[in-house]
């Protein structure tokens, strides 16, 4: 419980700080300072600038917010889809259930990184940055659900034959009442699933960005920042850029592990 509140407060603090930096600095994420390209820390740019003269701290903060929002949304969609598919499979006939799980297995066996690259490279070059961000997270959500759906299916299958389910049926339960009876029982399974997907998606987006297939410029993203650091000399100097993502992922994992215990 203590760790959980620490992780929660840490996340909240990071979100607040990032929001404050982005809104109060008065600099846009794509605003270039031509007189200060690749500069170190200064009064005008507390964390220096990148190769295009854009303020680093504003971009890191914006990337943080974008990444977190996208990952949370994608994780929510993915968990909801998993809950829906798992329930549907468990409460329909055995044939439908087996078939659905087969589809899940196929999804799980897909080389997802390859697939992501394929989907992203099929998009036209003129895709707007906002669209590219949206598509990246939608694709992540679309690939994240099958593992969770399997877990939901197994859990729901146990509930389907439980004593209280038989009793609810004996009371004339309607089919559309099933989710409201079953989902509260699956919450201890869905919540950790949701929380573990968030850091996984943050990291997945960063990986894609490193390959240049994630969120498009000029929108900032963790991966995009790694990309511009192809020069290892610069990488050495600005290693701190990765601190936020490390703290974020750790906070999220801590939240997840304590939620599972609770």
């Amino acid at each position, binding site marked *: 419980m203590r760790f959980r509140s620490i992780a929660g407060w840490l996340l909240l603090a990071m979100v607040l700080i990032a929001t404050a930096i982005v809104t109060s600095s008065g600099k846009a994420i794509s605003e270039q300072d031509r007189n200060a390209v690749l500069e170190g820390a200064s009064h005008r740019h507390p964390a220096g600038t990148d190769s295009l003269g854009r303020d680093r701290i504003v971009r890191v903060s914006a990337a943080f917010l974008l990444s977190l929002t996208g990952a949370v949304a994608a994780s929510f969609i993915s968990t909801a889809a998993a809950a829906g598919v798992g329930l549907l499979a468990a409460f329909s006939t055995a044939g439908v259930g087996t078939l659905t799980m087969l589809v899940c297995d196929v999804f799980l066996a897909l080389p997802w990184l390859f697939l992501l690259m394929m989907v992203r490279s099929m998009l036209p070059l003129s895709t707007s940055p906002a669209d590219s961000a949206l598509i990246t997270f939608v694709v992540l959500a679309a690939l994240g659900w099958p593992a969770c759906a399997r877990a939901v299916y197994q859990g729901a299958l146990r509930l389907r034959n439980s004593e*209280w389910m*038989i009793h609810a*049926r*004996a*009371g*004339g339960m*309607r089919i559309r009442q099933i989710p409201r009876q079953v989902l*509260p*029982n699956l919450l201890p399974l869905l919540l950790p699933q949701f929380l573990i997907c968030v850091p996984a998606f943050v990291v997945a987006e960063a990986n894609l960005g490193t390959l240049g297939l994630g969120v498009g410029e000029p929108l900032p993203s963790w991966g995009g920042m790694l990309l511009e650091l192809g020069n290892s000399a610069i990488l050495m100097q600005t290693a701190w850029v990765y601190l936020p993502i490390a703290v974020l992922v750790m906070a999220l994992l801590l939240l997840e592990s304590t939620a599972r215990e609770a």
Partner: protein
Amino acid sequence: MKRHLLLKVDLQARYGDRAVLKDVRFELEPGEALALVGTSGAGKSTIVLSLLGLLPWRGGTVKGEVLLDGLNLLTLKEREWRKRRGYRIALIPQSPMSALNPPLSLLTHFAHAWKAHNKGGQSVFKERLNTVLTEVQLPIDPEFLARRPSQISVGQAQRVLIALALLHRPAIIIADEPTSALDPVTQNQIVELLRHLTRLHGTALLYISHDLVSVVQLCDRMAVLDAGEIVETLAVKDLGLARHPMTRALLGALPVPVDVLLECQRQSGVKEFSKSA
């Protein structure tokens, strides 16, 4: 004149190759209390699930007929079946604790059961809820109704299940060993409650049990089930005349001779009668 029958049952049931119910026939008149007695494994719970059309969920199949109001339920589509479950024919299950959905509050249980058959009518629901809760002698305050099943006692849980069964004022209540998980004192209270409420509302009761003492307290007739067959049906007051070895074995297991038990019951019945008169 032909008697009016509420329920006429003639069924066979099997799980895969294994026949569990070979020949089960009985009839139930409105307001009557019939006991279905048998040893463990005689097929009592299978009868319950068959009558509610829920045996497929346990992997079984049913043949024959279950006539309710002259309509064979076994030929009904699931949609039509569902409308009768809990509405015309309700169940009080065996183990009170596992029959309630753990994360849901008691109020949610009642709300779900109500919405299964009635749309809207929040004020009607509140009124009926208070009535049934009072009938089973449970508190009606919101604090109690907000509790989860794990926060109430087994006796209270059994009362909640009786209240759930009474919610739609069904014509038949099937009570599947409703007292087997309870201590003797609570057992007695629940049996009294069932007797009082079924008589009050004229509800027919199918009482499934292996406890003959409660059968004598509660029922008019008794059917003895042995290895998937009903081997003997007789009036409870004629229990002493039982012939079948299975019935005799059940009677032999009583702590007192059955005549003594019947006499006690008759006297307590007379007392009750004089009290109410």
